[in-house]
């Protein structure tokens, strides 16, 4: 019997050890999951008789689906397209359960007057939680269509079936199109939990790589993005801020600004200021002119030095994440290590943009925010208008990967439009504003102590993680820049971490491995040196990096293959399958170092320990004189449950892999004591084409009938870990502090 088989089934400490967190996580869940808890997991009981979480607050079918007399279906989702392909995948889910061809189905994404409020489009939740809601709603509609058709055709309910082409056929050969049935059917009825779902063996849409709906427009110059929206009479605004958060710009007197040629209006409220022009380039030019005025730091100076010495002394609230204790054999080897990552920028290629218009006492905001219902709440509180007079509509922007400047820009635009009613106002942040003001992905530190017994079992696992917040998503004006600038200001809310199991800086800090003794602690630093919020995978990135690096360090100490050490400590069958499938495809067992500075590494995680499983295998070479890494081969294997759109999953996993390589090897927000100093792509370099792996393969394991598991963030942690492990294999040196830049590597390798 292995020590781990003694572990109690409920060993995970879901409550994060803090009563306040428990209470918080259950509050306000009825209408808006995103509003209070950011990216927390829904609180559903999982019982079959209960509607899926996203369906509970909006049980009426016509909130989700309408069928026109011409037989076309319109689907409404509170989720939004971020470039992750969710619009197409959700449409496929609806088409499947309606049993209609996808081309007869259209989809409307988050719009506060038209769609259900499904909270944020974040945390890889859309398919895992939004999918089942839409799916069951569609299954209910199909059930009602069948019943109504049966009575119209004069046959029993059991004598009719849908044909996949938008018609229903009776056993007597008569058939009727959906449109004719829908005309005499009200969908203003509540969903039932037991509507029959279509079965995998008869799927027509789920499992198909339906081409993305939005790509043809995007490759031909269609009006695909909010940046492409042009409303009649639209004005162009630029918000005027200092170069970086924590600073304040001294502006000349109002009259002087208003005399600048080309200016339509200068908008000022407290410390908030914006210029509004008829022509966009005039707005840019005037903004630049005003930004030439001096700026001064308002906040205390930024701490400089290594990240551990900055973060660890800061006041922190401690949470016990995992504490298990079992008798084991005596340890014979002990390893200790510290791992870090810097502050990251989301680095959206398109800086944030928003459009707002105030007409007849109603405010409309168009935004690419991930939380469009929160955009409405924020705007409403910021300008002091009732929520029913504020309307927010999602329009696509550049990929955001978390909370970039989108919510701030939306609030900025709302405030400008409120102060300047009538014409629509388009606000575009500039590149340097995005770098200077967006919430960053938090810098973090972890420390791990692990011990092996004589038979290479891990008998001790002590782990600590220190992190500023990964979720400061705004739900009122107290969470956006404009709210802090107006008079009277909205003071920032107290920051509370997302509770486990989703976790914040603690995300994925509890190893999925079966370890007999674990002491995992999260030190939440509510006030870090920078504004920080959600960035793809949150704390999961460094936690997986740390756990998976330590596993390789242990494997080396034990003189064991890193894959074997993992499998020896993993009981979850799906996790094992994903590791073994990736290893098999990569030919891990027969790998051979071809030269000095050539090597292999792997990483694994189940995202949040409740989303998709992902293993990553890399083969790399490193150039000794430059420290440049070439990734020769990247192989991943993924289990995300039932796969709706296989190519969509591959695209997300492959994109996450490349993005994670970029984070791991070159990215860091630079700063001095006064300000963020990264303001462009040369001071914040990201990966370019010549550093993309030579070969990338993503294997998606088929899991028909299994629940959907969120996949979009699954490769972030494992990839960075696999790279560090491959580097250790290639060079014999262990690199624990990201970014592993060529310069850092060169300095270490040149002496070898």
């Amino acid at each position, binding site marked *: 019997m292995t020590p781990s088989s003694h572990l109690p089934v409920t060993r995970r400490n879901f409550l994060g050890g803090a009563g306040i967190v428990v209470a918080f996580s259950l509050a306000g869940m009825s209408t808006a999951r995103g509003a209070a808890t950011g990216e927390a997991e829904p609180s559903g009981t999982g019982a079959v008789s209960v509607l899926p979480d996203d369906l509970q607050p909006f049980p009426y079918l016509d909130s989700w689906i309408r069928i026109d007399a011409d037989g076309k279906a319109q689907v409404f989702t509170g989720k939004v397209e971020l470039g992750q392909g969710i619009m197409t995948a959700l449409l496929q889910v609806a088409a499947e359960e309606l049993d209609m061809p996808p081309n007869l189905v259209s989809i409307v994404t988050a719009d506060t007057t038209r769609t259900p409020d499904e909270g944020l489009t974040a945390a890889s939740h859309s398919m895992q939680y939004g999918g089942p809601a839409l799916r069951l709603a569609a299954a209910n509609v199909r059930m009602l269509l069948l019943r109504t058709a049966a009575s119209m055709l004069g046959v029993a309910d059991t004598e009719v079936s849908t044909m996949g082409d938008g018609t229903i056929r009776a056993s007597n050969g008569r058939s009727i199109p959906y449109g004719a049935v829908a005309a005499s059917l009200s969908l203003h009825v509540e969903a039932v939990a037991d509507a029959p779902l279509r079965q995998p063996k008869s799927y027509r849409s789920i499992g198909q790589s339906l081409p993305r709906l939005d790509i043809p427009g995007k*490759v*031909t110059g269609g009006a695909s993005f909010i940046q492409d929206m042009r409303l009649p009479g639209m004005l162009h605004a630029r918000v005027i801020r200092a170069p970086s958060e924590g600073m304040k710009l001294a502006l000349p007197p109002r009259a002087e600004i208003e005399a600048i040629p080309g200016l339509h209006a200068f908008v000022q409220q407290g410390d908030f200021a914006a210029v509004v022009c008829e022509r966009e380039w005039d707005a840019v030019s005037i903004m630049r002119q005003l930004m030439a005025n001096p700026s001064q730091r308002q906040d205390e100076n930024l701490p400089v030095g290594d990240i551990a010495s900055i973060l660890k002394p800061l006041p922190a609230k401690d949470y016990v994440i995992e504490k298990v204790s079992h008798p084991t054999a005596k340890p014979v080897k002990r390893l200790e290590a510290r791992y870090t990552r810097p502050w990251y920028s989301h680095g959206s290629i398109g800086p944030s943009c928003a459009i707002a218009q105030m007409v007849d006492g109603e405010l409309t905001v168009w935004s690419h925010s991930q939380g469009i219902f929160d955009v409405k709440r924020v705007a409403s509180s910021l300008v002091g208008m009732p929520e029913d007079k504020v309307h927010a509509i999602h329009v696509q922007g550049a990929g955001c990967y978390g909370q970039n400047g989108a919510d701030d820009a939306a609030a900025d635009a709302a405030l400008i439009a409120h102060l300047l009613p009538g014409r629509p106002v388009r606000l575009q942040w500039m590149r340097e504003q995005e770098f200077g003001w967006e919430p960053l992905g938090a810098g973090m530190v972890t420390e791990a102590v692990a011990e092996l017994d004589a038979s290479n079992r891990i008998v001790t696992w002590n782990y600590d993680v220190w992190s500023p917040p990964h979720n400061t998503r705004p739900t009122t004006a107290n969470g956006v820049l404009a709210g802090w600038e107006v008079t009277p200001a909205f003071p920032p809310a107290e920051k509370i971490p997302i509770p486990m199991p989703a976790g914040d800086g603690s995300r994925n800090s509890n190893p999925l491995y079966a370890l007999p003794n674990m002491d995992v602690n999260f030190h939440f630093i509510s006030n870090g040196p920078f504004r920080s919020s959600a960035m793809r995978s949150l704390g999961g990135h460094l936690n997986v990096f740390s756990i998976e690096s330590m596993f390789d360090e242990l494997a080396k100490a034990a003189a064991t293959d890193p894959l074997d050490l993992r499998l020896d400590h993993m009981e979850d069958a799906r996790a094992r399958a994903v590791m073994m499938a990736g290893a098999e495809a990569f030919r891990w067992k027969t790998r051979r170092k071809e030269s000095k500075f050539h090597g292999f590494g792997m990483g694994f995680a189940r995202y949040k320990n409740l989303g998709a499983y992902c293993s990553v295998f890399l083969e790399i070479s490193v150039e000794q004189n430059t420290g440049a890494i070439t990734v020769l081969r990247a192989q991943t294997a993924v289990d995300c449950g039932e796969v709706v759109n296989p190519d969509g999953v591959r695209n997300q996993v492959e*994109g996450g*892999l490349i993005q994670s390589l970029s984070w791991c090897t070159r990215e860091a927000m630079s700063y001095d004591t006064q300000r963020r100093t990264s303001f462009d792509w040369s001071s914040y370099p990201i990966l370019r*084409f010549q550093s993309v792996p030579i070969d990338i393969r993503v294997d998606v394991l088929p899991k028909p009938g299994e629940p959907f598991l969120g996949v979009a963030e699954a490769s972030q942690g494992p990839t960075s870990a696999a790279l560090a492990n491959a580097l250790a294999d290639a060079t014999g040196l262990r690199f624990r502090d990201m970014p592993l830049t060529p310069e850092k590597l060169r300095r270490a390798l040149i002496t070898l």
Partner: protein
Amino acid sequence: MTISLDVNGERHTVTASPDTPLLYVLRDDLQLNAAKYGCGLGQCGACTVHVDGNAVFSCLTPVAATVGRRVTTLEGLGTAEKPGILQQAFIDEQAAQCGYCIAGMIMRAQSLLSYNPSPSDEEIRQHMQPNLCRCGTHYRIIRAIKRASAVLANHQNKGDAT
């Protein structure tokens, strides 16, 4: 001042100060969506268009510098109904995530294929180096360029140069 421009084979007259970046004229005056504002610094390539067949950063190019020259934007390569060869290749490879960088990517790639219809992988990577993608779609973009290259070669073999 009044400036006359040749964009996608059509003549346009706009009123703009001569130092206005071409990008703003294309987007705001001509209402063309494809070229995107990304950095305004010539570092990301989202604004890439062609001037006399060469890829340029329209965010850095003063509109006055394009007088008497041919400007081509992504819209000049095809439409959603009738996409050009590269555009079709990007659709076939599903070579986009958010797609914000894609117009610039296609224009950058088009300039490569126009003088080197059969580039190697390394030539593609090198040529595409100025353009940034944050979603990590690079590998698919490389595949799309190779696919377009293969289509071009096939056309040439059939004596069809279009």
